[in-house]
């Protein structure tokens, strides 16, 4: 092969196609930029997590229990303290908090009762600075800044927590392991542990987390300790957390987040590559005569092939380099976007493996996509130089083509797996991409077939020409449909999922949906509370009892025995160990559907055995079904039960749902608390009611579901922002593909339009022809993208989010219209020259 010649020719060709080269490189650069940014961010996060893991935990070892520490655990804590390890204690629970300074509604906040020097690591800063030290000395509190906003309070005001009062000593300005969203979800109040009893809140049924922290600087000693007391912790239902675990869990969670964003980046890259393939396809078609002439002059097929391969490789590498540079810059934007989800300070740094990986992946994938259309070069016969109409033999699939296709499939799959959180996600992603591309290609094919078949012969000239443009030689239908369709698909899918998740939480959806939840109601308070509600004109929508219980045995086998069994399939530890908050009632509620067995009828089948209905996922985890038995430990009393039915529960709704429902009467006499759901339309009345309830029953917690919805909304919007930011790259790549495909057919358009205008067509008519063509492509591509998104949304709702699915017609229609309009606009903008230029100038330029 004549390498020197090929290189020289490639250079000359590149020089002549600067404008087109820019679009080509842009398509690759966009995807590579996204990829490099995300992958650099991932390594920034990993570095920050391993640096800050100790500060996030605030200690070297943490013990956690849902009940007060039992005697053996307390003994262990004492012995560790005696061994000289610095120790701290804390109790964390939710409570209504309000200020006596005004009449604002009380809010459910997270109360942290602290004792000792926790956190041992990391920096805590407050305003005023001495507050963190002094609040432990009396009935004082340090709060998150959000608490002051929520309660309309100021430093120095008095906070009411249960039956106790605390003076606000200061606000937190810095706390280790801070997570942006958590402040929105549950702002904190820190009080000294010594005064927690005064609140009178740690009663039966309230959710409190008891914690003990230790400073044990020798990591090995921590490991040995955890190992030595493993069975004790298990038996006493105490969870253990170490720095290594925090690092691993957090690293994994954040890694998954970054990898998920990485997949979106990969999608942008692949979209760009579709643009590359279509650009190369059109380019090769245009260069057919040059190729034939070169062949006539004695260039071998592989020399000519090399010219264009070198060109494609050079442009791919150039695009990837631009993208890598841009991505390194964009990486600095990501921490700000994702700050709410990342509890560590991220210092972005140029990451060579990420840059190198992005460069290599971008250049290789682009080249692989270019290869397929480039193969046609070898089939160009030199005879084309003599007669333009000579088409040559068209070979559909030869061994080379098959090899390139296989290479492409393997490349895309490998890239997906490399980028995805796990192998299956990667495979699923690659399959999804392939299916989407295939469906879009089929749509394009149908559009071309349909346009040819049902060409509107009676319509005006412009419409006929515009529709005919869809299927004429060198049309851009396939490329544009893939580009636009894919972009719309990605964005619409995100939107569909978001709308569905939020729709589930819609509190104001109807007058029967509750907007206020009251819980932790003690048995003896139920009547008085009801009277208070009635007095204020509020009718409870639902009132349910909660009976806390633990599983003692499954089918007669004690839990301890099941846990000790290392052979075979064992249910997850938490399913066996957790405290279940069960209820009893005689009907199914709106959010439940029966999937197996039957609901209770009149007489119990076996006396002394309560019938229960289980959540189907819990049943699956436990490995049991209808007819199996569970023995419950209800505050020390054993209750035998038989599974009568299984239910599927829609957990996405803001409603009270229970893993386990007993038949009524079976839990009579068991200690219980109550939950009441109500609806109060007027926000001011809702606030006043909460205030009244808390002032009378300090232990009752209330959730204003409207506020919860706002919070969830805010959290999801921030998550969506990050996802949308990544999706921007897909839109960018899609637009470049569109502009590129318009630009690559520009010469064809120039020629046609000059001819038409020479024959007497007015500029307006040319514009109309283009409008019809772009409108047809834009609408069909966007429509199929939206339709695919509706399908993908269904799949995600059904299999990932496990919630009912509603097609958001409005959002899909908006995506459709927007994308169509955008296509026409971009098409117009990039073919302006086509319409404006005097026909003679065009014809002269084109007369080769």
């Amino acid at each position, binding site marked *: 092969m004549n390498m020197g010649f090929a290189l020289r020719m490639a250079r000359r060709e590149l020089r002549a196609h600067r404008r087109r080269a820019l679009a080509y490189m842009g398509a690759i650069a966009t995807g590579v930029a996204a990829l490099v940014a995300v992958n650099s961010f991932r390594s920034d996060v990993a570095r920050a997590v391993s640096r800050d893991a100790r500060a996030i935990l605030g200690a070297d070892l943490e013990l956690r229990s849902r009940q007060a520490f039992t005697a053996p655990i307390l003994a262990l804590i004492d012995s560790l303290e005696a061994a000289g390890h610095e120790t701290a204690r804390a109790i964390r629970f939710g409570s209504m908090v309000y200020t006596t300074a005004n009449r604002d509604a009380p809010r459910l906040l997270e109360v942290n009762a602290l004792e000792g020097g926790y956190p041992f690591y990391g920096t805590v800063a407050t305003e005023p600075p001495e507050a963190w030290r002094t609040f432990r000395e009396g009935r004082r509190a340090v709060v998150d800044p959000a608490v002051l906003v929520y309660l309309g309070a100021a430093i120095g005001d008095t906070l009411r927590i249960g039956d106790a009062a605390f003076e606000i000593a200061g606000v937190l300005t810095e706390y280790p392991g801070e997570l942006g969203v958590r402040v929105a979800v549950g702002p904190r109040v820190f009080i000294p542990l010594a005064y927690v009893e005064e609140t009178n809140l740690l009663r039966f049924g309230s959710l409190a987390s008891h914690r003990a922290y230790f400073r044990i600087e020798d990591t090995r000693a921590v490991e040995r300790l955890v190992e030595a007391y493993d069975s004790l912790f298990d038996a006493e239902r105490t969870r253990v957390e170490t720095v290594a675990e925090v690092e691993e869990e957090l690293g994994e969670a954040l890694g998954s987040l970054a990898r998920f964003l990485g997949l979106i980046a990969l999608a942008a890259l692949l979209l760009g590559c579709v643009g590359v393939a279509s650009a190369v396809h059109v380019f090769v078609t245009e260069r057919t005569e040059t190729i034939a002439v070169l062949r006539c*002059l004695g260039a071998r097929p592989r020399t000519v092939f090399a010219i264009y391969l070198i060109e494609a490789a050079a442009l791919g590498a150039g695009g990837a380099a631009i993208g890598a540079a841009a991505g390194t810059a964009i990486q600095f934007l990501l921490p700000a976007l994702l700050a709410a989800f990342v509890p560590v300070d991220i210092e972005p740094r140029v990451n060579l493996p990420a840059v190198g990986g992005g460069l290599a992946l971008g250049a290789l994938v682009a080249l692989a996509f270019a290869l397929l259309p480039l193969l046609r070069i070898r089939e160009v016969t030199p005879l084309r130089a003599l007669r333009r109409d000579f088409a040559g033999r068209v070979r559909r699939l030869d061994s080379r083509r098959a090899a390139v296709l296989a290479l492409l499939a393997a490349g895309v799959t490998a890239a997906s797996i490399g980028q995805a959180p796990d192998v299956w996600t990667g495979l699923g992603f690659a399959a999804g991409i392939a299916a989407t591309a295939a469906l879009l290609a089929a749509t394009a094919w149908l559009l071309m077939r349909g346009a040819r078949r049902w060409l509107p012969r009676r319509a005006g000239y412009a419409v006929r020409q515009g529709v005919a443009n869809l299927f004429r030689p060198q049309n851009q239908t396939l490329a544009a449909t893939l580009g636009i369709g894919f972009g719309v698909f990605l964005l619409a899918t995100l939107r569909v999922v978001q709308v569905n998740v939020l729709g589930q939480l819609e509190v104001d959806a109807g007058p029967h949906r509750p907007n206020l939840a009251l819980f932790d109601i003690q048995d003896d308070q139920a009547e008085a509370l009801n009277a208070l509600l009635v007095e204020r004109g509020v009718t409870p929508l639902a009132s349910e009892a909660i009976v806390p219980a633990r599983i003692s045995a499954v089918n007669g086998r004690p839990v301890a025995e099941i846990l000790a069994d290392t052979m075979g399939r064992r249910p997850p530890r938490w399913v066996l160990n957790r405290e279940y908050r069960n209820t009893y009632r005689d009907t199914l509620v709106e959010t439940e559907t029966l999937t197996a067995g039957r609901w209770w009828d009149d007489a119990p089948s076996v006396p002394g055995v309560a019938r229960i209905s289980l959540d189907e996922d819990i049943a699956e985890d436990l490995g049991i079904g209808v007819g199996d038995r569970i023995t419950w430990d209800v505050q020390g009393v054993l209750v035998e039960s038989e599974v009568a039915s299984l239910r599927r529960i829609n957990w996405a709704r803001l409603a009270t749902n229970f893993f386990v429902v007993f038949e009524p009467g079976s839990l009579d006499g068991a200690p219980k608390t109550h939950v009441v759901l109500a609806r109060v339309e007027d926000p001011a009345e809702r606030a006043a009611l909460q205030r009244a309830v808390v002032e009378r029953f300090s232990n009752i917690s209330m959730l204003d579901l409207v506020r919860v919805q706002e919070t969830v909304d805010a959290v999801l919007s921030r998550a969506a922002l990050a996802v949308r930011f990544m999706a921007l790259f897909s839109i960018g790549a899609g637009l470049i593909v569109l502009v590129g495909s318009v630009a690559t057919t520009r010469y064809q358009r120039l020629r046609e339009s000059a001819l038409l205008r020479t024959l007497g067509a007015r500029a307006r008519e040319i514009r109309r022809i283009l409008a019809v063509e772009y409108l047809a492509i834009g609408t069909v591509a966007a429509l199929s993208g939206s339709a695919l998104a509706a399908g993908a949304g269904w799949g995600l709702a059904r299999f990932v989010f496990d919630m009912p699915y509603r097609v958001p017609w409005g959002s899909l229609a908006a995506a459709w219209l927007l994308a169509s309009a955008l296509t026409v606009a971009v098409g117009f903008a990039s073919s302006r020259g086509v319409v404006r230029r005097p026909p003679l100038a065009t014809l002269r330029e084109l007369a080769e």
Partner: protein
Amino acid sequence: MRIIAENLEQAYESAGRRLVALRDINFTIEPYEFVAIVGPSGSGKTTLLGLLAGLDRPSSGRVLLDGRDLGAMSEDERAAFRAANVGFVFQTFQLIPTLTALENVLVPLELKHDGQRADAERARALLERVGLGERLDHYPAQLSGGEQQRVALARAFANEPAVLFADEPTGNLDAENGAAVADLLVELNRERRTTLVLVTHDPKLAARAGRVIRLEGGRIVSDSGGAGGAVSRASAAGAASGARAGGAVAPANPGGAPAGAAPEEGAPAGGLAADETRFGGASAGGAPEGGAA
């Protein structure tokens, strides 16, 4: 270079029907001969040119260039053969639009030697020879049709081909430019001592050829170089021995040329020698070659 066509047939399958574009083609073209292939549209002229140049394979029969069977060569061998021995001139000029005039002329040289300093000199000299010494760095789009075809001529002669194939070289040009290009083509052909095979509609250009092969419906209906291979070969023998005029037998234009063309065609009927003499006289640069006849 001697070109032999033996029982050439070219047929295409189209919509289930077999269309025969060429059949029973037999002739020999001797080195340095100037042959015009003429005939009405669709008579198979361009198809024949493509076969002779090895751009396509015949359905049956064979083409021998310098005794080598083009059909037996691989695609790469044919390419290498073209690079070394063949020049092309096309009706639509077929300059590579992304290359300057100079670079276009350089292509065959670079294909042959991979770019040497001497090549650029040679390409420049050729462009000067065709009168475009001032326009080396112009792109095809910046040149007129006549100028483009002159660049194409320079490119065709760049690798000193033993044989030059021209497909309607004046077909896309006006009378004036066409004549200039025709003059140049004939002059260069004589200067560089190439065999020239050209397909044309233009009776004036055909008249300048030493031999005219006329096709109709895919068959040779007349050949001024002889009715068949034997006659042609005899003519070739004569040409080789220097007595070129002796071989010419058939009238140049048996198909009935326009009346105005007839007196001009009288001269070529006499043979190549007369033809060359005539043009040798008309062109200052061509004199030495003309004298050799």
